């Protein structure tokens, strides 16, 4: 599996939380995050990385989005 960094639009709450809203996949397609189901610190052993892991529902599927070191977003690609 590959580590795919993505351009992301995120929502910053007034309490200091961050949530992803949209992201652009490497082929240019844009996706909307329908819902964030879970948020926790975690490591990705599959692609190699660590950060805050958001379990997101996108087009009816559950995916993980990682916020790495507070400034970059990556997704576990096929």
């Amino acid at each position: 599996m590959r580590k795919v960094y993505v351009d992301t639009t995120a929502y910053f709450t007034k309490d200091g939380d961050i949530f992803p809203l949209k992201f652009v996949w490497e082929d240019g397609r844009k996706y909307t995050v329908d819902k964030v189901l879970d948020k926790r610190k975690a490591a990705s052993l599959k692609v190699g990385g660590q950060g805050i892991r958001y379990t997101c529902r996108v087009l009816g599927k559950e995916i993980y989005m990682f916020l790495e070191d507070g400034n970059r977003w990556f997704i576990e690609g096929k």
Partner: protein
Amino acid sequence: MRIGLQVQNTNFHNMLYFTFTKMLNRGYNINTEHQFAKVKKMERVILHSDLNSFYASVECLYNPAIRDKPVAVAGSVERRHGIILTANIIAKKGYGIKVGEAIWQARQKCSDLVVVPPNYSLYIRFSKEAREIYRTYTDLIESFGIDEAWLDVTESTKLFGTGEKIADEIRRRIREELGITASVGVSYNKVFAKLGSEIKKPDATTVITPENYRDLVWRLPVSDLLYVGRATFRKLAKVGILTIGDLANSPLSFLKRLLGKWGEYLWTFANGYDTSPVVKLDYEGVIKGIGNSTTTPRDLGNDKDVRLMFYVLAESVAERLRRHNFKCRTVQIYIRDNELKSIERQAKLKDYSFVSRELAEKAFSIFKDNWTWERPIRSIGLRATDLVTADTYMQLSMFDDENKKPKLEKLESSIDDIRRRFGHYSVQRGLLLTDSMLNCNPIEENVIFPVSYFR
């Protein structure tokens, strides 16, 4: 309220320790089991967490392709820092690769060893993340190097359950949240907790209690004990003390004769009577001195080279003094020749200072007084100690030009500003341009070695 309580606790422990040592000094023969029965009532719960093969584990996490191979993190060969800093378990167990070996030695044992350069900023991030996890259980955390820490969870057991339960939870969280592993020792003193974290690796908890320490700890070789280095080990081995149990069961008076006051400390450690508290300490520690040393890319052969290197080091030391708002009074130098013989010398400045030129010139004058150039120099260091906060009141001199000092200080601060915005090499001394090979920025290109002994 809580802080007050803990301070009292520490005092209480110290008090007991002092009465105890006093008794020993007066020659009471040791009926210690009885003496310490009183202390046992308020037994502490201390954890020692050790991130397993830390640097290598982080590298393996970030690069899944090398995870199943023997991996070592090592300094750069070109810059002559080519020693193994950490190796993963496959390299250690499968090929017998040891920390501190040269890369070529390791390659002889294992030709397909994957050697990766260190990435300190990443390791510091992980070290901080681990500390955040510890912090959810206690505020009494004492870091020991970048990858180890003691935690006093005595008070937290009321909230989170036994020490073992907290240890298991910390291990689970480090595994899931950070993707690396830790081994944790749980005990009633710091020494046994540290030994516990080394008994079973990786990702395991070892509990050492007053009931089982004889079975678990006393079997270990005496060299595993804190403070038993090569020299002490040799002395102990000579008299037949090979395990920690041998040490614990030796008469105290005998050990004192053999090792001086260290004999007493070691005996106390081996018997589990260590009462030293867990001190709140970040991995940077309390600053007592600021220094830099470096193995230079080529050997230094003359005074000119040495003077240049002192300027390189002094600039970095002075910058860090200013960053932490310190001035120093004493300058120490460290010189090691190409046959690895080394000297350390120090001298006082006329006045407290953080001006790099004053540090460098002082260092150079110490050097001129103490070095006879029998051999070329391989590594060189400069250290500033005897620190005071920079904005404290100073005694002015009647004979020096006191107006010049603030000007020099302002100049140095301006250089800091310029370097912060445009990079280290944007402003430089003319002297440093004479040899580009030796010129470097020790602050950023610094090598942090894992700490494995008491500082």
